[in-house]
């Protein structure tokens, strides 16, 4: 009998073009996503060495990191450097024969939101992008990971990557998520437990009841933040939820080809008895809504907790990190998290900019108003999400509650466009990173779920959303 294999091993093995003696392999890449910030130098490299894009039809280019989210953006991008990057991507896509969703394309959006919703992402694939949140696509059991620009050039030229197999870690998320607790809380809680380097060198496979019960949107949120635990990729085995999602979106796969594909996908889950380099478990039923208090995603706590006391940390380097974070965040040990007032709210990003996320936030805001001192914005993850939310009346509800309703893009998650925090501003954000300066120099970020962000918008401070849901 053949040795039982993990999901990861199955995908890896079916993509090895060539094994090298040193244990590395040349890995075939099925799909390549490209955006304007990490690709210009790669295309320039191709041009310089007179190389072509080997498989333009497997490549999809998108404007997302830099794009303004204002209504008038199709007329003018005021920032000259942003405009240049957007123009260059359009030009590169045209020259090299790549499909490009520009700002004026109704399908445009954040590359990791758009890929799945158009059926670009399928189980068993390898997917790369010059963006660390490529891990999002692992929700479909695609081996998906971020790469640097040199590797982008390598994939454009050869449709392959040189890579070494990762170690495997299974994270069992057992039990059912309690009332008011979401996929975002699940992943934040894991990162808080294992740390931002907890899964460095590993590919995580998420398993267990709490994961099985998640929608594809929820699974994408979990896999998205794998990188915040140090893992380049996260994977979730395909099941009926996956197939139902794909059936309506992956319209190019039909008839007997779909039958064959589904049969293969049903064989992808890890075999019984497959072994992992590491296994950990998390009791999902014991998780409360999470919020970050520091400047690393591992600096996170249940909303019911207080800002931690650094003097209680024995590891000197870690204590130093916490002291620095508290100073930057302007927080005092022992302060109740629910006593922290906020200035801004951001709902969006590749982590939480999908329709389900917007629905969850809108449900909390229903019949309520954004606190008068708070500026709150909703940035849909894609043009499709935006239109769907508008058709459902969600957009109207947000606007009525006092939120700004913007055009799709990465926006305030990293503040490369005009959406930025001012120094000292404190933001409740559904994004993925709370690093110093991430949302704007001197800006202070608290990571949380869309429902928690909506609760913060209403009350004007970090709040336990469960109290607003009862």
């Amino acid at each position, binding site marked *: 009998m053949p040795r039982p294999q993990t999901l990861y091993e199955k995908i890896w093995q*079916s993509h090895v*073009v060539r094994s*090298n003696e*040193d*244990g590395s392999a*040349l890995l*075939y890449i099925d799909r390549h996503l490209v955006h304007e*910030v*990490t690709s*210009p*130098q790669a295309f*320039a490299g191709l041009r310089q*060495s007179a190389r072509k894009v080997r498989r333009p039809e497997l490549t999809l280019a998108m404007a997302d*990191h830099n794009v303004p989210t204002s209504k008038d953006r199709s007329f003018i991008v005021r*920032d000259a*450097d942003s405009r240049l*990057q957007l123009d*260059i991507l359009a030009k590169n896509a045209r020259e090299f024969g790549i499909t490009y969703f520009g700002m004026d394309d109704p399908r445009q959006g954040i590359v990791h939101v758009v890929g799945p919703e158009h059926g670009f992402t399928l189980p*068993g*694939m390898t997917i790369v992008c*010059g*963006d*660390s949140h490529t891990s999002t696509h692992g929700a479909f059991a695609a081996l998906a990971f*971020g*790469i*640097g*620009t*040199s*590797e982008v050039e*390598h994939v454009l*030229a*050869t*449709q*392959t990557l040189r890579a*070494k197999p990762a170690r495997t870690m299974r994270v069992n998320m057992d039990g059912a998520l309690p009332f008011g607790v979401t996929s975002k809380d699940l992943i934040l809680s894991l990162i808080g437990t294992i740390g931002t*380097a907890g899964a*460095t060198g590993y590919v995580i496979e998420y398993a267990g009841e709490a994961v099985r019960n998640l929608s594809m949107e929820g699974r994408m949120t979990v896999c998205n933040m794998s990188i915040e635990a*140090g893992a380049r990729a996260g994977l979730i085995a395909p099941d009926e939820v996956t197939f139902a999602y794909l059936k309506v979106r992956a319209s*190019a*796969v039909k008839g007997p*080809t*779909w039958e*064959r*594909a589904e049969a*293969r996908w049903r064989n992808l889950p890890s075999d019984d008895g497959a072994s992992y380099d590491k296994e950990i478990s998390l009791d999902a039923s014991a998780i409360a809504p999470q919020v970050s208090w520091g400047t*690393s995603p591992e600096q996170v706590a249940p909303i019911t907790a207080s800002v931690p006391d650094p003097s209680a940390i024995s590891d000197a*380097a870690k204590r*130093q*990190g916490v002291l*620095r974070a508290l100073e930057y965040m302007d927080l005092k040990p022992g302060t109740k998290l629910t006593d922290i007032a906020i200035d801004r709210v951001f709902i969006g990003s590749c982590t939480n900019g999908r329709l389900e996320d917007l629905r969850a936030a809108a449900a909390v805001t229903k019949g309520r108003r954004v606190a008068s001192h708070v500026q709150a914005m909703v940035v849909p993850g894609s043009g499709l999400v935006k239109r769907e939310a508008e058709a459902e009346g969600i957009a109207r509800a947000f606007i009525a509650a006092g939120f700004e309703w913007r055009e799709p893009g990465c926006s305030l998650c*990293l503040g*490369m466009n005009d959406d930025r925090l001012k*120094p000292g501003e404190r933001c409740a954000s559904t994004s993925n*990173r709370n*690093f*110093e*300066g*991430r949302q704007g*120099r*001197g800006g202070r970020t608290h990571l949380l779920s869309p429902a928690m962000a909506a609760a913060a918008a209403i009350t004007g401070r970090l709040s336990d959303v469960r109290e607003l849901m009862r």
Partner: protein
Amino acid sequence: MRPFTRLTSIAAALPMINVDTDMIIPKQFLKTIKREGLGRYLFHDLRYAPNGAENSGFVLNQSRYRQAQILITGTNFGCGSSREHAVWALADFGIRCVMAPSFADIFSNNCAKNGVLALNLPQHQLDRCLAMAQAARPLTVDLADQYVAMGRDGGFAFTVDNALRHQLLSGLDDIGLTEEHMDAIDAHERRSAIEFPWLWCQ
């Protein structure tokens, strides 16, 4: 790619853990379409006050460390975004070797593509290097011999993954090497189209 063989330099210490790539090069400098010129923005928010003046407390602003080509830092260096700009900024500033107990995966990959050695070392060896840094005495990192020499204080051996070592020593272009295997790539595509036809549906 510029090969990395042997480097002798003073080392600068940045004793922080989880230094993320946003900290190494903030987002506003990612709007470039070039690889060069990012050195002056390296560690921007640590190095410069909001008014643009140099922060004299920051190690790379201190005269003895301005020319440092080695950086010694804490665990999980380079975490976060995949931006290769972080490595371009380090290299453009002149840093050719970063020593830490651990690195984020994508960051170390990016280093390898730019002739920068991301050297994993255990804390006791880092401590010896830190002492040298504090005394502003040069270290020699010899990748061929896999040895860090510390003058009269001796030195120690280290090991680097063989493939990485070969790549850094030779400075060979990855794409050129892969292009030697175009037949194997063609064969994989033919096999994939038969075995997994849905991957080729458009």
